[in-house]
């Protein structure tokens, strides 16, 4: 049992640092020994959400709630799933249940604040993050979320002050690193923003927000790659069905235009449209691998820097 508690603590710490793969290892070890640990299922669910493995996260959260419906963590886990699947009312309900179990939890308040923020209930979001920061003024997640709200309002100066304060406490806090990078980029300090993005990727090479930050930096630095990533963001920002419909829509538009042009005996235009389509296909094929290679090179260079 002692071992399990130790592993759980290690998993929670790893997750807080943004090192999700490490957290997986500890949690699957716990569940390999005791598959009825509700806390481990709940934490695993939250780790899976970070990796966008929503289906598996849902199963873990459900299992946690079945095992301990009166516990704090399973409700947080289910709420996280509901947020990820945009069932905001249900998420709110579960977060309120969690807060009725532990009313002084800054963690649950911070989650509730983030829920209200993405739900576009900015006033409620501000109220909740203020309470969360009062409950635990040293909590890095609360500080980062508060900073993010300020940044979203355009108050970059205060947002930067708070996030730097969070990083002074823990220079490896992933969300703070990324947020500071975003603020620096918005202020035009591209080099410092890039350092932050790479540092964050050193901690978790798959972190989506850190990758997104690096993409935004790349988009500023290289026109062609920037064009690709803007296109990529446009395609992937939304549901998978939307992405499929957009991709097939483009192909059908190309095919329909060539049929219409051929039917109207405009064969030279057909060749022109086909050439553009092929160039587009090659570009979308080649651009991501160039970007990935550049990214890997940059990550390797940073590995050698002792200052990190």
């Amino acid at each position, binding site marked *: 049992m002692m071992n399990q508690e130790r592993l759980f603590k290690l998993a929670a710490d790893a997750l807080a640092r943004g090192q999700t*793969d490490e957290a*997986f290892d500890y*949690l*699957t*070890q*716990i*569940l*390999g*020994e005791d*598959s009825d640990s509700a806390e481990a299922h709940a934490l*695993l669910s939250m780790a*899976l959400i970070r990796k966008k*493995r929503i*289906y*598996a996260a849902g*199963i*873990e959260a459900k299992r946690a709630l079945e095992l301990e419906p009166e516990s704090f963590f399973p409700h947080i886990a289910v709420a996280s799933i509901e947020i990820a699947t945009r069932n905001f009312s249900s998420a709110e309900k579960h977060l309120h249940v969690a807060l009725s179990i532990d009313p002084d939890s800054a963690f649950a308040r911070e989650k509730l604040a983030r829920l209200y923020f993405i739900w576009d209930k900015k006033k409620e979001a501000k109220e909740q993050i203020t309470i969360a920061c009062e409950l635990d003024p040293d909590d890095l997640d609360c500080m980062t979320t508060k900073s993010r709200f300020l940044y979203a309002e355009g108050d970059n100066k205060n947002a930067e002050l708070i996030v730097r304060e969070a990083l002074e406490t823990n220079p490896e806090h992933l969300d703070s690193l990324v947020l500071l990078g975003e603020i620096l980029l918005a202020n035009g300090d591209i080099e410092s923003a890039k350092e932050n993005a790479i540092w964050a990727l050193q901690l978790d090479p798959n972190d989506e927000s850190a990758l997104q930050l690096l993409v935004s930096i790349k988009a500023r630095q290289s026109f062609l790659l920037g064009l690709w990533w803007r296109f990529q963001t446009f395609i992937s920002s939304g549901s*998978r069905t939307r992405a*499929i*419909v957009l*991709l*097939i829509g483009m*192909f*059908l538009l190309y*095919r*329909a235009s060539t*049929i*219409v042009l051929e*039917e109207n005996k405009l064969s030279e235009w057909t060749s022109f449209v086909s050439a553009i389509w092929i160039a587009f296909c090659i570009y979308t094929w080649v651009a991501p691998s160039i970007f990935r290679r550049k990214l890997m090179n940059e990550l390797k260079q940073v590995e050698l820097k002792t200052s990190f």
Partner: protein
Amino acid sequence: MSSKYLIADEPRPSTLGQHVVNPQWPMLAQMLAGTWLALPWFVFNSFAIGSPNRNKDIGLAIASVAGSIALLYALDYLIATNTISGIWIPLSFLTIVALRLYIAYLLFFSQSTVFELWQYYGGVEKNGMIFLILGSFLGRPFLSSQITNDFLRLILF
């Protein structure tokens, strides 16, 4: 006694592991070689990778074929009754292309997630490019020359 805890979406152990390819290859096979190669390849890959979605993948492959047949009958009826004519005939056949691509994308996304996990757990993929080239530049022309039934050709390619 502890055992390895398996998360619901993780690949199950499979004896066909050495034949796993990146699902981009069957996806490209749908575009370049045709349904005859892409769908069996997707289904085989699903088993080889030990995908927990393999029943869903089989269902999607069947839906692709059944949907194409249904659309072909519907279009045949619409053409025979002169409901569609002229340029609308080739344009209407794009619905079959759209359906096939849609299902191929669903299969691709379904397998991509499992494939990434499979790689994460040390799986080494086989290069699918040679198989794709053989299927597109040898398999497709050969099959095309052997099959004279237009209906069957529309289903297979």
